[in-house]
């Protein structure tokens, strides 16, 4: 579990007042990605085979992670890079701050990085008087707006062009028109100056290739290239789960990633960075640092069911098909990884006391598992984490409120002692008759009121058992009366 204690994630509370603009914007994005993905997958007859191999390799890497990380470290060092190990988020922040101070960094440009969001790096840099600027257009917009991402691939999708124009006008002191192309041009010009001025570039990585110590960064805009090419200093902060064995493995993941994420065959830019620059004139950083972030991952590895979450290659395909995500958006998940993968990631990284609602934020419909390019059994892990919340396990005690645990015990008793159930079946229709209007129950007492506030309940009929008995007695006195004496 992460060392930074996280505030409680109130999924339910958020879900009760989702701003209506969010689902509509999010659904526009997800439906485009879903269609794009489907088209790319249809083109590739070996898709299912690739998914299986991708899954096998990720699992293999997780099970041998110490070996691959050791190889990675050796290879990065051999290439002239400097490796730092960060056990905690605080360790990682201090490592980056120390390097930044040593190099008198005043401005750092950042390429989209989940790991730096995880450790709250921007905040730490700002506190030390270092400007940390997000440069992915969507991340830049939400940084200006001071909000979090609503979608993993298009983080500012919840904002309309008019809102972005107003934001640019206010923050950049210009008169920005509500036109996406113009707004992108303004961002290009503004950020271009920053790329050229920054003393430090900060990135994450999509993959770390243990074989050669290579950082693989996939982007579309080119900001990732700018951050790792223009400043003389490059620091990559990367979770230890991003390691893969070798370049042969990479052939699989590069084929899976963009197709699953955006419906592209390959993203526009894929960089393979092995250490700092070798020649003065080639551009690229003089100094390259890799911060390998644990922050609780090594503890999660102990759980053979839960650790499959580390197979994730952060494509967002699971969120794009998730009907829950599509109706609440990314903010509801209260962490920087949202959607179904966030619902199994956050409770393991932040602990179930903070994130106990997330494993329940699913109907277990299974659409996510169908599209996951590395076959993470998301519904299985959701159920696994629900068990951790409901009854506790080796990793955490139960965090389920007592009334629900008591209700579950009573339900178990009633359903296991069939005479109680059958008795209930006889009296319930009479009791519920009070609430019946015409052929529906428009509003029922708690907890069924939570059902009827959205739609009526059909009336309790519960007369099949009686019908069966009467019919059996009449028609076939000896046959098929079942196995009881009733």
């Amino acid at each position, binding site marked *: 579990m992460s060392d930074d204690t996280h505030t409680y994630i109130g999924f339910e509370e958020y879900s009760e007042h989702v701003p209506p603009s969010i689902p509509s914007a999010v659904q526009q994005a997800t439906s485009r990605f879903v269609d794009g993905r489907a088209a790319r997958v249809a083109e590739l007859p070996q898709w299912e085979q690739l998914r299986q191999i991708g899954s096998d390799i990720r699992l293999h890497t997780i099970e041998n992670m110490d070996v691959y990380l050791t190889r990675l470290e050796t290879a990065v060092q051999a290439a002239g890079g400097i490796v730092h190990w960060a056990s905690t988020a605080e360790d990682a922040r201090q490592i980056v701050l120390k390097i930044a101070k040593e190099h008198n960094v005043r401005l750092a440009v950042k390429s989209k990085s989940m790991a730096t969001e995880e450790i709250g790096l921007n905040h730490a840099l700002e506190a030390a008087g270092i400007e940390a600027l997000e440069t992915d257009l969507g991340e830049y917009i939400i940084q200006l707006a001071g909000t979090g991402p609503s979608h993993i691939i298009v983080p500012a999708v919840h904002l309309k062009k008019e809102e972005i124009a107003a934001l640019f006008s206010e923050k950049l002191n210009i008169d920005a028109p509500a036109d996406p*192309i113009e707004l992108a041009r303004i961002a290009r010009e503004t950020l271009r100056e920053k790329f050229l001025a920054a003393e430090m570039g900060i990135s994450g990585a999509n993959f770390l290739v243990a074989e050669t110590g290579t950082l693989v960064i996939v982007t579309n805009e080119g900001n990732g290239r700018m951050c790792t090419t223009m400043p003389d200093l490059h620091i990559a902060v990367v979770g230890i789960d991003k390691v893969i064995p070798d370049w042969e493995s990479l052939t*699989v993941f590069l084929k899976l990633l963009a197709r699953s994420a955006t419906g592209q065959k390959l993203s526009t830019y894929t960089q393979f960075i092995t250490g700092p620059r070798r020649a003065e004139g080639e551009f690229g950083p003089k100094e390259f640092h890799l911060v390998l972030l644990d922050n609780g991952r090594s503890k999660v590895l102990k759980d053979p069911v839960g650790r499959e979450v580390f197979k994730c290659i952060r494509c967002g395909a699971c969120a794009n098909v998730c009907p829950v995500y599509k109706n609440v958006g990314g903010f509801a998940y209260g962490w920087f990884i949202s959607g179904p993968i966030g619902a199994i990631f956050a409770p393991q990284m932040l602990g179930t006391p903070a994130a106990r609602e997330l494993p329940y934020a699913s109907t277990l419909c299974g659409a996510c598992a169908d599209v996951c390019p590395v076959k993470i059994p998301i519904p299985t892990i959701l159920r696994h984490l629900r068990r951790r919340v409901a009854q506790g396990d080796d990793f955490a005690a139960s965090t389920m409120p007592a009334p629900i645990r008591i209700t579950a015990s009573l339900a178990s008793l009633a359903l296991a002692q069939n005479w109680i159930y059958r008795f209930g079946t006889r009296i319930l229709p009479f009791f519920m008759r009070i609430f019946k209007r015409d052929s529906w129950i428009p509003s029922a007492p708690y907890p069924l009121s939570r059902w009827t506030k959205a739609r009526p309940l059909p009336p309790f009929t519960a007369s099949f058992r009686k019908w069966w008995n009467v019919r059996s007695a009449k028609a076939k006195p000896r046959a098929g009366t079942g196995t009881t004496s009733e």
Partner: protein
Amino acid sequence: MNNTVIENIRSSLGRTEQTPLSLRPAIYESRQPESVDSETEHFLEEVRKVSGVAQKLSPEGVAATLKSLVAENNILKATLWHSPLFERLGIESILRSLGVDIVSPTADKHDMALCDLGITGADYLLPETGTLVLRSSAEQPRAVSLLPRIHLAIVRPEMLRPDLHQVFAEAKDSHYLVFITGPSRTADIELTVTLGVHGPKNLYIWMLENR
């Protein structure tokens, strides 16, 4: 040095320093190439699908095509890789004759950023995705394909490789590689596709025909 991260991982996985690596699962087979002509067409077609402008060109056609590119795009400053091919084609002198300023590819980044056009070659080409693969060196500086608003790559069919497998086998020891698949793009504002957000807005690819 005592590495607690590695120790914690081993303890969670029930491993020690001596535990051997298990066998990595096998990788699928590479795609099989077709004829050079059809691989070339495939490549050019894929480049067009990702908003690149791709064409076949004879060495004799370079001067005229470059002239119209410069005129159409109002190119005043250009930078290019040091390449024997470009010298043979006389790229630099053609550009100078068109009144274009040549900026050294190893110039200061601020000067490079003022270039309208950056001309590179490529080390490998991937037909399936329309991808240019570029190594980095003092002769092939990374900024040439990144800072100018227009990127022109002059390539040859010999650079075609069937699949990622072959490119990686040849290039994995390189300290820097970049794959370029189309011009810089974003859809971050209301999902409107916009080209040229941080990298080049236009990507031209000229495939030199062998003769």
